């Protein structure tokens, strides 16, 4: 980049604080960013909108010096700069708040912050600065706490404090509200607005349109690695923004015609499980029941026991008493996952790569993974490969899984297509009970709509479905009733029509925030809040 061309001039208005021009980033054959131009000015919150896989994260990593662009330049106040590494980016005043926090779990808050501070700043001096900044912005932290003991909201505070301690000119925030309760998000917005008013630039990456319309004065929209438009989001509707992001009209989910109230098929009865590991959540006294044809949504912020609850339902971890989990009336708490599958249950875990599927293995091997005990895929211990391939082919066809080659490795599929495969693999077995964790996490809108429709249709055929999700929109779209998982406790489920996002959001932050009145049991205010808050 020594003989770079003259810096491209601003396309409009004064010289931007930071500019990215003609950014191309290729990974092998895949082009993640294709000739992207972006200008960011001081004192603005600039939204970078796009679906998962649109190239937002790649662009952001280039701006933070984590990735080198294949082509294109980045400018700072009109001068071309080379962002060789994050240190260089920080030196130019670029700070980053990561979505998947870049924190070391076993280090303390202060140690995590010290990692990017000048070497001389340690111990008490650092703690004082953390405290002063915390006071200033209302971002309170205990420097001596280990990170693993903190909630997602507190972890994000560390990220923000760490970023602000370097007095950045540009703060990049990657999906900052995806792990926050509505209340925590409100607090974050006021911090961001204050940073803007201090004259800093903010690059706000999100796919949540209401947030963007509230906070941002300009938006750049990415689709499939390219800029497809830029606008003032306040002048747009959520619908028009969505259309730009997605490109095509996304199918609305068809509501089911009639609800059949079937017999109860899945019951958890006062299930308690100790935390399986050092940094895991114990499940406490969880009860629920789901009837055939019903979809129970379980809301909650990550880290409140979702994987633990999923494992307890699936049999990957077993209950202390058989009666704690019942499928169609049969106690199964002591049974493993395959025994539960044989009783007609199906499971889709949250993590596609390395839990629901093995990325290095072919799709037919991945069909074997969850179906070897329930489908006739082996005889006398010998595999029947043709049948596994046939099963994979049926899933691929039924769910329109896009792939390259006849039987490719699961890891070569895009997130949405792999998710369609692992969901389809279970749905084609026509389970009587389906437990699905984060069904559309990181999936593009079209695939998400298709998956939700498939789950609704399955319930319509009499299946009892549990959907664990962090996405409230999703739950309100498909669930009949909603319960909230917080710190390993499950609130009593209430009909989706009788509650609101705000009520659920409050519970996600912990029932105690609802202001329990004296004399009431902890569960009681939870229920009240869920039903009554408008």
């Amino acid at each position: 980049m020594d003989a770079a061309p003259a810096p491209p001039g601003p396309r409009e208005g004064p010289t931007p604080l930071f500019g990215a021009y003609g950014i191309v980033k290729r990974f092998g054959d895949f082009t993640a960013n294709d000739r992207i131009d972006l200008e960011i000015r001081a004192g603005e919150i600039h939204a970078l909108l796009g679906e998962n896989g649109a190239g937002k994260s790649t662009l952001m990593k280039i701006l933070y010096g984590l990735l080198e662009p294949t082509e294109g330049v980045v400018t700072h106040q009109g001068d071309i700069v080379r962002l060789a590494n994050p240190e260089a980016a920080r030196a130019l005043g670029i700070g980053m708040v990561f979505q998947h926090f870049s924190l070391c779990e076993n280090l303390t808050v202060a140690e995590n912050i010290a990692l990017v501070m000048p070497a001389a700043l340690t111990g008490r001096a650092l703690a004082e600065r953390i405290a002063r900044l915390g006071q200033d912005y209302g971002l309170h932290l205990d420097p001596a706490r280990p990170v693993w003991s903190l909630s997602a909201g507190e972890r994000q505070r560390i990220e923000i404090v760490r970023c602000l301690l370097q007095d950045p000119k540009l703060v990049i925030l990657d999906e900052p509200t995806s792990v926050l309760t509505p209340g925590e998000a409100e607090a974050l917005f006021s911090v961001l607005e204050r940073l803007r008013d201090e004259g800093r630039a903010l690059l706000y990456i999100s796919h949540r349109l209401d947030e963007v319309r509230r906070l941002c004065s300009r938006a750049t929209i990415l689709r499939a690695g390219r800029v497809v438009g830029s606008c003032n989001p306040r002048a747009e509707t959520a619908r028009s923004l969505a259309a730009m992001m997605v490109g095509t009209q996304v199918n609305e989910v068809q509501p089911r015609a009639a609800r059949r109230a079937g017999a109860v098929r899945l019951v958890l009865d006062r299930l308690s499980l100790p935390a399986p590991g050092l940094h895991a959540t114990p499940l406490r006294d969880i009860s629920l029941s789901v009837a055939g044809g019903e979809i129970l949504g379980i809301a909650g912020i990550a880290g409140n026991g979702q994987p633990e609850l999923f494992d307890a339902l699936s049999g990957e971890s077993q209950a202390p008493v058989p009666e704690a989990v019942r499928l169609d009336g049969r106690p199964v708490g002591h049974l493993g996952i395959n025994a539960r599958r044989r009783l007609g249950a199906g499971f889709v875990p949250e993590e596609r790569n390395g839990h629901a599927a093995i990325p290095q293995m072919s799709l037919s091997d991945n069909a074997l993974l969850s179906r070897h005990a329930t489908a006739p895929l082996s005889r006398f211990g010998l595999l029947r490969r043709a049948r596994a391939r046939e099963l994979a082919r049926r899933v691929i066809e039924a769910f329109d899984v896009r792939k390259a080659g006849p039987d490719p490795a699961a890891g070569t599929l895009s997130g949405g297509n792999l998710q369609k495969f692992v969901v389809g693999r279970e749905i084609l077995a026509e389970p009587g009970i389906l437990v699905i964790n984060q069904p559309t996490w990181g999936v593009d809108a079209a695939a998400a709509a298709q998956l939700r429709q498939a789950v609704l249709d399955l319930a319509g055929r009499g299946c009892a479905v549990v959907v664990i999700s962090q996405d409230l929109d999703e739950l309100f779209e498909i669930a009949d009733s909603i319960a909230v998982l917080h710190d390993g406790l499950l609130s009593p489920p209430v009909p989706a029509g009788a509650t609101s996002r705000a009520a659920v959001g409050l519970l996600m932050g912990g029932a105690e925030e609802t202001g329990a009145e004296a004399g009431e049991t902890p569960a009681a205010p939870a229920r009240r809040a869920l039903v009554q808050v408008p």
Partner: protein
Amino acid sequence: MRLDLLPRARRSPWLDLLSPALAFAAAVLIGGLAVAAFGVPPGQAFLAYFVAPLSEAWSLQEVALKAAPLALIATGLAFCYRANLWNIGAEGQVVIGGLAGGWVAIAAHGSEGATVWILPAMLLAGTTAGLAYAMIPALLRVKLGVSEILTSLMLVYVAQLLLDYMVRGPLRDPQGYNFPQSVGFDEAARLPALMTGESLHAGAPIALLAVLLATLVLARTLFGFEVRAVGASPRAARFAGFSDARLTLAVFAISGGAAGLAGICEVAGRIGQLQPEISPGYGFTAIIVAFLGRLSPPGILLAALVIAVTTIGGEGAQIDLKLPLDLTRAFQGLLLCLVLGADVLTRYHIRIVPGGAGGGALP
């Protein structure tokens, strides 16, 4: 300078074959330089190491004799390593297998009628003993979470000392002039030679059979799928309903049993009695063989032959060219290093970025 690794979307089969071949060529090249440093013309050394062992009937038999235990042990180890479990104590399991099987032979020494069942009993005892010995690290890992790497290795020393004690003590030949060795086994307690008057014994077909069986099991059975799944992703394997503990015990049983069988084949075949040392480090060399063969049984068979050739060649080179035996061992270690390094070719595109100021740079 910085070394960047870009993951390949898919593995290409010809690179899978090419990468160990490249590694082998590089090792031979470096070996040639080393040999030249000892004042021996590399060409001559090459002939001694790689060609001479293949040129005569007796040396071919020697190659097969050496390759058989290596292939047998490495095939068992492949099950472990594929499942990401690290039994590195096969040498101890070889020794215990040889000791237990040999004990049976000594106990039956000279008894009438002990002709038909003695050899099967020895093989069974050896296999079971190796299996049982491998169960110690496996159970410690499953029940208590103790690292199987360290315990299995420590047990090698214990096994060797136990054999030493037995051969110098309880199992010593009373008429053996105090030599530390047992009585010679009866003819019925020896593995039969494949051709009369030759040294190649039934250990080779046993190893071949094991390789065939393992190929079938790994590629065609649900258990083989389980091994591969646990190795690739333990979490996904649990989702498939495969139990970590059960699989750990199973693969340790397989590798321990194979090593024990190799041990008793060695004792009942080539040696014919118990001695303080019954294995020239087969259990350790088999680790090289397993990786050199890319943990696939047919590859392991080929790798075992290659290692056997270089070992026999090394013995010849020691006599003819005065090249030290340790050169062979260093060569084998280097070869394994290079194979592991070359493996990166199959998984990543390598890009070398010149220039100093890069993040994540290597010196």
